[in-house]
């Protein structure tokens, strides 16, 4: 695809003695949601962390918006307008919700209109605006983590399993938020194990196994083909349906 915002070509990543990513080729088209599926340990999180420079790619290139970024430091990559919502949410628990958002906006003033929109998506953030983020519930922390990634318009948002361990009502709020972001033409790369969530928001899909992409195509195709799902993901998919 020529209009890919992000493309990984033959990316290898080693973590200590382990060879985790073994030649990942992945294209993330502009203005859509790409879902990265795969069983536990397939390398999905490592892919996101390698894109952010939190692990250094030992081989291969990562192109973002026409520039190679695989040698850059994490802060430099983040400043290229890539937001990352890690699996552990990584919020600053000692700081207030407000301060967490200020940090995410990198100390430029928070856009009131955008903040109003975020409060509409995640009302609890407004209620607990001045409380320490450590006192929020798990679902509220996840809301804050996503809100932090979208407080400023970013070119690309990487989200690692936003629905993990959350109640269905909060999952629905997440789906609604991602759908709104999609309408605003935001490019999102989403790691997800929950297939119904993936199907609800994904435009394109890539399936990983053993550190490689084993399938990529349109979400609609995969969603319609039960045999393909079975072949690609086997039990892990059924368990989440």
């Amino acid at each position, binding site marked *: 695809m020529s209009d890919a915002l992000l493309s990984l070509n033959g990316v290898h990543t080693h973590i200590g003695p382990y060879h985790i990513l073994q030649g990942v080729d992945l294209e993330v088209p502009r203005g859509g949601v790409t879902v990265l599926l795969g069983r536990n340990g397939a390398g999905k999180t490592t892919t996101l962390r390698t894109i952010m420079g939190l692990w250094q790619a030992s081989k291969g290139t990562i192109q973002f918006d026409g520039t190679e970024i695989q040698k850059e430091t994490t*802060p430099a990559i983040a400043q290229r307008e890539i937001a990352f919502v890690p699996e552990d949410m990584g*919020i600053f628990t*000692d*700081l207030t919700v407000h301060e967490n958002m200020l940090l995410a906006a990198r100390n430029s003033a928070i856009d009131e209109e955008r903040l109003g929109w975020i409060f509409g998506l995640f009302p609890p953030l407004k209620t607990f605006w001045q409380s320490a983020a450590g006192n929020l519930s798990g679902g509220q922390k996840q809301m804050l983590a996503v809100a932090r990634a979208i407080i400023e318009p970013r070119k690309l948002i990487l989200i690692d399993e936003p629905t993990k361990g959350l109640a269905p009502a909060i999952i629905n709020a997440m789906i609604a938020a991602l759908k709104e972001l999609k309408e605003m033409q935001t490019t999102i790369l989403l790691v997800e194990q929950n297939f119904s969530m993936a199907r609800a928001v994904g435009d394109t899909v890539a399936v990983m196994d053993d550190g490689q992409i084993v399938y990529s195509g349109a979400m609609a195709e995969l969603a319609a083909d039960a045999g393909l799902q079975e072949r690609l993901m086997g039990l892990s998919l059924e368990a989440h349906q």
Partner: protein
Amino acid sequence: MIVKLLSGDRPRSKMLSAVLLLILFGLLFAPFLFPGTRSLDTAARICIFIVLVASYDLLLGYTGVVSFAHTMFFGIGAYGTAIALVNMGASYSAIALGTVCGALVAGAFAFVITLFSLRVKAIFFAMMTLAVASAFLVLVSQLSGFTGGEDGLSYRIPREMTPAFKLVKEKVLGVRLNGKLITYYVVFFSSLCLFLVLLRMVNSPFGRVLQAIRENAFRAEAIGYKVVRYRSVATILSAVMAALAGSLMALWLRYTGPATTLSMDIMVDILLMVVIGGMGSMYGAVIGAVLFLLTQSYLQNLLGLLQESLGSLPIVSEVVSPERWLLWLGMLFICSIYWFPKGIVGRLRGT
């Protein structure tokens, strides 16, 4: 106005506000409320240590950097002023030059230390600072031609700042208005200004990033902050502040030696003051310094009084003997950490 001076960092507890006000007025009117050389000396030390401890808290409490080189920076400031006064004579220009040079050298030293060691893990940075500080202490003791060695340096300060200078002939409220009093107020107002500057720093966007780094450095990087750079700037600012506090100490004591500025004992005291007062709060530095120095100065007297009144009881009077004051000091610290694990300010704020 007051909130603005405090950079929006309200004490957030009535009790804490009351205690802070009490300390502020106590120090402001100390020469009149508690006349006498010894109490004035304690008050001046409290002012200086508030700045020193607060600048250490900027590193430890706000940024999460453990350093044992803080007394080294304190010493560099003190020696800067002392050496200038020895070599240039008792003039204000010597004080100014010494203070500025001390601060600059401390900042440069801190910069060099951060260059080669902030990238390493926390414990190695702590060990590195310990090594550098110990080496510096030995160096100062050995370069006796320049630093006075173990004996330190004694020097004169401008006449207007010495007890020999009389502002007015008569006593005011029973206190002689002499040069020592002027020096006290120089120390007091300089410390107050430095403290407010530190308060401003930690409540700025810069301070917020430091807190984020303390909690999760990787996360701060992923948002786009260069962690090493922020840590370095915090280390340098903290060193400069410590050096300025050192210059005030040199001015107040009219003597600078390894024991009053560089020793590891002072380093441990600073650590205790930060922890007792409450890490990660500038007000903790105030409370910690006041409590610690008052205890250090007056516990012996208190024990003496106790022993007198309990003189008839054989074992008890032995235990509360003033000679055993260090034992009681240690017990007090253990108790305070047991009951206030988040420091006194943490407890007062109910967090």
